[in-house]
């Protein structure tokens, strides 16, 4: 499921918009799962399921902010892997 071209507004427009990239979201979800020491297979399948959920949600939207994508991905990740969701949600607020 590649998804249609959707513009992602980054940091409330302070950085240039870019098209939604499934691979980028997949890599970040996978990294969050691996960070809590999940096995690689679990990380892969969780990332795939979260990306699918986010793409279905994006389907009706012409453009969204990166914060919206992160929020939606976190919501979805919480149901599959709460610990990874915690790190994914808070990694910007560690420092």
């Amino acid at each position: 499921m590649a998804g249609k071209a959707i513009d992602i507004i980054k940091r409330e427009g302070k950085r240039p918009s870019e098209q939604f990239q499934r691979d980028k979201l997949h890599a970040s979800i996978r990294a969050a799962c691996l960070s809590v020491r999940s096995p690689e297979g679990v990380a892969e399948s969780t990332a795939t399921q979260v990306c699918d959920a986010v793409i279905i949600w994006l389907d009706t939207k012409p453009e969204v902010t990166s914060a919206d994508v992160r929020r939606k991905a976190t919501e979805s990740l919480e149901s599959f892997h709460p610990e990874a969701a915690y790190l994914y949600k808070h990694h910007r607020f560690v420092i």
Partner: protein
Amino acid sequence: MIESLAIIAFAALIHASFQLSVSMLTLLSGHAIGSKTAHTKLLRLTNAFALGVAIMTMLLLSFFALLVQYAFQAPVPVIAWVASCGLLLGLGLAVWIFYYRNEAGTSLWIPRNLARYLSDRTKATKQSGEAFSLGMTSVIAELIFIFTPLAISALVLVELDTDAQLLGILIYVVISLSPLVLVNGLIGSGHKLSHIQKWRETNKRFLQFSAGAGLLILGFYLYIDKVVAVTVTTYGAF
């Protein structure tokens, strides 16, 4: 001498309650684990980071002690203690008010641009040398808060003999490094980062309160011990 070393140990304990280095170590290990870095390399990175923090703390304390020695010679004049006590009290209140931001996670007082830069640098760190310099940088970045415990320890150190000075520096570095060593040990032994970060978030207000209270207590103690007691002994009570 025991009293002086106890003051240094208490100042180091206050230093240990400041969290920038621990936050950066948590981020560093999170990204290393997330990118499937081998366990030995992960340990090399985190150990190099901790070593950088230890070396920079030792250098700063030695440098401050040298400055104090050039400026005052022993014994340290009362006015220097008065100024230091004022700094301790002011900083104690500042820690209570400003140290953590009022938002989720463990966001610290540091400006957001600097936080983003440190965060990006931490994520990009792949080599032990980079991790070492990142550890050193984390100490410098928090200098505004650790300056006072370091300065107090330097004032105490110059009044000790040479052997005790070395012991004092060692005590300060070991105690101030203890949270980093603990987190490093937990990561190395396979604990989940989410548990460590959740503990830090749950207890951040307690850490903030104890750091601020520690500064106030040390300030009052030193004011009585180094200012009031000396003044009364020298000039009489009335």
